[in-house]
């Protein structure tokens, strides 16, 4: 019992996930700033931001639904946090059983849905457009994301357990691209395009609600990166785990720096017509056991 509580609250749960999620975000911002020949914020900036947000007040716009606006960040945070339980981080595996890949996928969808609902509940036209885009983006990246996870799932009995995907480079590639989409980072930051819709679903959010969302985002970052390290890069001891995670963070920050934003229709087409089929090739190979 003590162990379960430790897993959930300290490692790899709340504390570690929050800490590393925000740290990754800081690293991401620092790396892309250096690549853009800027100084960039300190690595600890997301922590400062979070503390500041938690100490501010919540503002509900006149058209907004306050109850839903409070509930959505909690659901998003809870969904992201629960997903950690199923991912064996550095050998800690509180809930490892066959089939838990599907639960992780469900929880991540719940997270995105709460984002979309949050946009609608805020009663702003920017929020509404942002929500529509959030859902369209979900339908886009979810296809290659699920396919690539199922590919590895076939090898591990649909359990999130360490696996080195050296035979499935296409699945790994598809997974990486859909992770970037899932985090709505460039070139897929369509839902929160500040040049068009001023930040998307979260435009009306402030204070602790926004703080919860940003923490949920950080935790999701940690979940996705950990998922990639475990399912595709073979996990490992704590040092190796972190080294591999940082490698993925660097890959994501390079993508963040070198691309312009695609339009939502272009994003959809890219995921379904290019990335998806690539992932399918590896899925078919996994199902029929065809190795090179």
């Amino acid at each position: 019992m003590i162990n379960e509580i430790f897993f959930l609250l300290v490692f790899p749960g709340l504390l570690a996930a929050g800490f590393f999620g925000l740290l990754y975000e800081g690293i991401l911002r620092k790396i892309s700033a250096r690549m853009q020949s800027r100084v960039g914020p300190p690595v600890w900036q997301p922590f400062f931001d979070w503390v500041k947000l938690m100490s501010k007040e919540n503002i509900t716009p006149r058209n907004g639904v306050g109850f839903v606006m409070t509930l959505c960040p909690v659901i998003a945070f809870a969904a992201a946090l629960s997903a950690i339980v199923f991912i064996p981080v550095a050998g800690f595996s509180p809930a490892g059983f066959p089939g838990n890949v599907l639960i992780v996928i469900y929880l991540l969808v719940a997270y995105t849905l709460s984002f979309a609902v949050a946009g609608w509940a805020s009663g702003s036209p920017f929020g509404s457009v942002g929500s529509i885009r959030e859902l369209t983006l979900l339908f886009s990246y979810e296809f290659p994301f699920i396919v690539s996870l199922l590919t590895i799932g076939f090898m591990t009995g649909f359990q999130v357990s360490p696996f080195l995907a050296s035979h499935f480079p296409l699945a790994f590639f598809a997974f990486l691209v859909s992770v970037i989409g899932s985090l709505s980072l460039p070139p897929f930051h369509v839902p929160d395009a500040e040049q068009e819709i001023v930040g998307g679903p979260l435009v009306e959010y402030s204070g602790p609600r926004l703080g919860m969302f940003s923490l949920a985002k950080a935790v999701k970052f940690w979940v996705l990166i950990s998922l990639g390290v475990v399912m595709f890069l073979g996990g490992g001891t704590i040092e190796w785990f972190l080294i591999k995670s940082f490698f993925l963070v660097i890959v994501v920050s390079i993508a963040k720096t070198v691309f312009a934003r695609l339009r939502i229709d272009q994003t959809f087409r890219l995921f379904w017509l290019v990335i998806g089929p690539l992932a399918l090739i590896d899925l078919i190979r996994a199902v029929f056991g065809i190795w090179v």
Partner: protein
Amino acid sequence: MFFLHEFTLPIGPQHPALAEPIHFRLKVDGETVIDAEMHLGYNHRGIEKALESKQWFKGVFLAGRICGICSQSHTATYSQGIEKLAEVTVPDRGKYARTIFAEIERIHSHMLLLAVAGHTIGFDTAFHYIWRDREYALEISELLSGKRVQQDFNTIGGVRWDISEDQIRKINQNLDKIEERAKHYYKIFTKDRTIRKRLKGVGRLSAREAQDFGVVGPVARASGLNSDLRTRGYSAYGDIHFKPVIGSEGDCMERMVVRLRELRGSVKIIRDCLANFPSGEAKAKLPLVLNVEKGKEAVSRIEAPRGELIYYIKSNGLTPERVKIRTPTFANFSCVGKILEGTQVADAPITVASLDPCIACCDRLTVLDVNTGKEKVMDHHELEDMRK
């Protein structure tokens, strides 16, 4: 609001992507813009009126304050108009210096727009890089006039500061860097796949439409019209060999490409000017208080970075009787409704940005009746009546 098919998306006058006081109302169906309305009038400063109370020499400084970016063009156009009125001949050295400065302004203005376009399509890296390299042009500006913006370099009868040999050497160094970077950005904008996807075929304006709307500057040139006033040879452009850049596609991509090619063209013009820099005075000797015959009129036109800038000036002796300014943005904005219709919401910001709008310089007074909510533009007589 929640599941309506159509709704209105307000953009501006306060908007993170639009640092200009203008208000768009986009009627949106899902992601498609079906109607676009534009509202001006948030930043009317009454400069035309204020110019009427300024003596000729002082007026030039006020004209420079109309725009932060094309400050040089405004002073040049106003000075050129007054020179016509007072029949002043500018010495050759002054003409060449003006040309050099005009092209430096074109470089930094175009780079600014390219950077903003990068930011608008969510490509912040391009924004930061181009913004950094724009410093080379601003350095030259600082070297020549002591100021990075609002240079007040021109005055009636020439330029206020001569260009020295030392400065020419430094200018040439910076020009090399600018040229190298301009080539690099040309490659990026034409080769990068995400940029091409976002710019190709967006906001298309055919040559015919461009002519009908009367658009000017790079926007018209991108549509295939030869709108480059520099070919008419004011300042030193008559002595310098150069070819105007004319595109054909008329979309956002072409507008960027035209500007990118003009960057290199400007570098070449400055080099030519520096190579053939005439000796002598850079400024004509004039009395401190200029007196122009009453009732005399002049129209002065210049190719500013954004397009044709027109000043109409009527003299009242020591001051102008009336100054009328037509900024390029004012001409270009007639086509906004047309090119926005039917685009995607995601393309709206880049479509507007591709016109290189400078709202503050072109803003006009609109009177809004609070009771009926109707807008109207007041004519001269009504304003006179109000004054009484």
